[in-house]
C-alpha cells in the first residue's frame, strides 16, 4: 500500500513539471505577452520596462523558466493583481470555503444518489427507478449555474428560507481560526455561527451536488443491477443468508467499487462547477475568486490556481485509488 502511494506521488512530479511548462508557455501566449497582461490599462512603456527587468523577461526563455520553477518550488506563485496579496495566500484562505462546499455537495450526492440508485436497481421499473432516471438526466442536462439561479430564486428570494449570498451573515460575529467556518463555530463553541455557516452552504451545496448526484445514482443503479444477478449472490440467497447481510456484504459492497471510482472522477467536475456555483451565490471560495480573476485578467491568480487545483485533483485521485484497496481485498493482495 505504501509502495503504491509513493509510486503515485512520484508520478505526480512529471505531471506537475509538464503543467508548469504549459502554464509558463500560456502566460507568454497571452495577447500582448505577460507584461501587457499584468499591466492591462495601466500600461506605460516605463512600467513595462520596469516589470520586464523585474521578471527577467530580457533573459533567454530557458533561464526564465528555470527561475519560474525555482519560485514555484519556494511556494512563490506571484502576486494577485486584484488584491495585491500573494497568490498562495489567496488560495489558502479561500480553499477551506471550497472544501466545505464540495463536502456538502458530495454528502448530498452520495446520501441521495447511492440509496436512489440501489432502490432503482432492486425495483427495476418502479416509480423509484423512473425517478432515478429523471434525476440523472436533470443532473447531466441542466447547467449547474442555471440550477443555482433557480434554487436561489425559489428558496432564497421568494421563500426566504435560506440566505441568498455569502458564507456567513454579515451581522454574525465569529472567530475563524481555521477558515472552515462550520468547523470554526464548532471549535470555538459559537454554535450560532456554525449553524449560520451551514445554512449558507445548503443551496450552493445542492446546486453543485446535482452533477455528481446524477452520476452516482446512475453508476450505483448499473453496478447493483449487475451484481444482484451474479452467481455468488444467487448462491448466497440459496443458502438462506439473512436479507440484510445479502444486501450489505454481497450486493452493496461489491457494487461500490465502480461507484467509488466515479466519485473520484467527479472532483474535477466539482471544481469546475464550484467556479459557477460560487459566483452565483457570491460565496468567497477559490471558484468565485477564479471567476473574478478571469473578469479582471488577473493572470498570476489564474496560473497559480490552475496548478494548485491540478495538484488537488491528482491527490484526490490517488486517495480514490488507495480506497479501492480498503473496499476490495483482492486488489490489496495484488498491490
Amino acid at each position, binding site marked *: 500500500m505504501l509502495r503504491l502511494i509513493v509510486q503515485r506521488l512520484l508520478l505526480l512530479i*512529471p*505531471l506537475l513539471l*509538464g*503543467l508548469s511548462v*504549459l502554464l509558463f508557455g*500560456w502566460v507568454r*501566449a*497571452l*495577447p500582448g505577452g505577460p507584461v501587457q497582461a499584468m499591466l492591462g490599462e495601466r500600461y506605460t512603456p516605463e512600467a513595462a520596462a520596469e516589470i520586464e527587468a523585474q521578471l527577467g523577461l530580457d533573459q533567454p526563455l530557458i533561464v526564465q523558466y528555470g527561475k519560474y520553477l525555482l519560485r514555484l518550488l519556494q511556494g512563490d506563485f506571484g502576486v494577485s493583481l486584484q488584491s495585491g496579496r500573494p497568490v498562495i495566500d489567496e488560495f489558502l484562505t479561500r480553499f477551506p470555503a471550497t472544501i466545505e462546499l464540495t463536502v456538502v455537495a458530495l454528502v448530498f450526492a452520495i446520501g441521495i444518489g447511492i440509496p436512489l440508485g440501489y432502490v*432503482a*436497481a432492486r425495483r*427495476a421499473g418502479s416509480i423509484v*427507478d423512473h425517478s432515478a*432516471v429523471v434525476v*440523472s*438526466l*436533470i443532473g*447531466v*442536462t*441542466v*447547467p*449547474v*449555474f*442555471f440550477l443555482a*439561479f*433557480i434554487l*436561489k*430564486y425559489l428558496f432564497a*428570494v421568494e421563500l426566504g428560507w435560506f440566505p441568498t449570498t455569502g458564507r456567513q451573515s454579515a451581522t454574525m460575529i465569529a472567530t475563524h481560526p481555521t477558515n472552515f467556518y462550520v468547523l470554526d463555530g464548532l471549535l470555538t463553541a459559537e454554535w450560532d455561527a456554525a449553524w449560520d455557516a451551514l445554512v449558507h452552504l445548503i443551496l450552493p451545496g445542492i446546486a453543485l451536488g446535482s452533477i455528481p448526484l446524477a452520476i452516482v445514482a*446512475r*453508476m450505483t*443503479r*448499473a453496478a447493483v*443491477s*449487475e451484481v444482484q*444477478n451474479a452467481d455468488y449472490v444467487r448462491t448466497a440467497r440459496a443458502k438462506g443468508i439473512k436479507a440484510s447481510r445479502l444486501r450489505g456484504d454481497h450486493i452493496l459492497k461489491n457494487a461500490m467499487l465502480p461507484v467509488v471510482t466515479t466519485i473520484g472522477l467527479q472532483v*474535477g*467536475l466539482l*471544481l*469546475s*462547477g464550484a*467556479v*459557477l456555483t460560487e*459566483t*452565483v451565490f457570491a460565496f468567497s471560495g477559490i471558484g468565485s475568486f*477564479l*471567476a473574478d480573476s*478571469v*473578469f479582471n*485578467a488577473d*493572470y498570476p491568480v*489564474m496560473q497559480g*490556481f*490552475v496548478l494548485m*487545483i*491540478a495538484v488537488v*485533483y*491528482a491527490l484526490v485521485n490517488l486517495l480514490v485509488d488507495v480506497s479501492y484497496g480498503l473496499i476490495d481485498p483482492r486488489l490489496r493482495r495484488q498491490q
Partner: protein
Amino acid sequence: MSANELPVTDGAAAAPLHTSIHGDGPAGADHGGEGVWARAWRTLRKNPVAIIGFVIVAVFVLVALLAPVLAPYGGTELPGRADVRPTMIPGPSAEFPLGLDRYGGDVLSKLIWGAQASLLVGVLSTLFGLTGGLLLGLLAGWFGKWVDFAVMRLVDLMLSVPSLLLAVSIAAIVGQSSMAVIIAIGVVQVPIFARLLRGSMLAQKGQDYVLAASALGLTRRSVTMSHVLPNSVGPVIVQATLSLATAVIEAAALSFLGLGGGEPSTAEWGRMLTAAQQELAVAPRLAILPGICIAVTALGFTLVGESLREALDPRNRTRR
C-alpha cells in the same frame, strides 16, 4: 458470464438509461449478416427514448436553420427599446409573445436566434475536438511506442486540469469572442476523443481480422485506414453526440464567466441567462426560458447519444 448467456435484465455495465431494448426484437427473427449500423438503426427505431431524443434534436436543428424565417425580429434588433424602463420590463403581450428583456429585445426572437448560435458553437467545437482528437489518436495508434507515450502524456496533462478551467485558460489566450468559446470548448474535447480513439484502435489491433489482413499482405496504412479506423468509429460517434450536449452547456458557462465577447444583448442562451441574473426577482422568465432551452437541447443530444451507445453495444444484441 459467458457470451451465450447474456442476462435479459436491463442495465448492463455500460450504465444505460434503463428504457432498454434487450429482447425487444421479434423472437427468433433472423437478421443474420446485417451490419452493425443496420442493426443499430433497427433497435433505435423501436426505442421510445431514442425517438424523443431525435425529435428534440430535429426540432432544434430546424429552428436553428430556419431562424431567419421563424424569428419575428432580427437577432440584434431591439424592437421594444422604448418600452423598457429599469424598473419595468414588459411581460408577454400580443406583439411580443414571450415579452421583452432589459435591453428591449424580443425574447422569442432571441431564443430562436440563440438556437442558431448554440448549434454553431456545438457543431464547430465538436468538429474541432474530433479533428484534433482524431489526429492525436491516429498518431498514437499508428506509430505506437514513444510517439504513443508522448501523445498520451499530453492527453493526461490536459485531463489533469478541470475542463472549465482549461476552457477559460484557452479563451484567455484567444481573446473574448464567440470564436474563442468555440476553440476553448473544442480543445477541451481533444484529449477525450484522442484517448477514446486510441483505446478503441488498440482494442481492434488485437483482433483476428487485423492479423488476417496483415497476413494477406496489406500494408499497415491500408489496414489502419480501411479496417481498424472504421471499426473504431462507433464509440467516437456516440461521444460526438454527447459532446454536442456538453458544448451547449459549456458555451453557456463561458458566456456566464464573461468570455463570450461582443454586446451583452447578443442573442445567445448563455448570455440571456447571465443578463437575467439581475432581474431574477422581477422577471424570472428571462432566466427560466433560456435555461429550459439549454437543458432541453442538451437532453435531446444526451438521449440520442445514450441510445446510440446502447444500440451499438454488442452486449445488448438481441439473442437469436
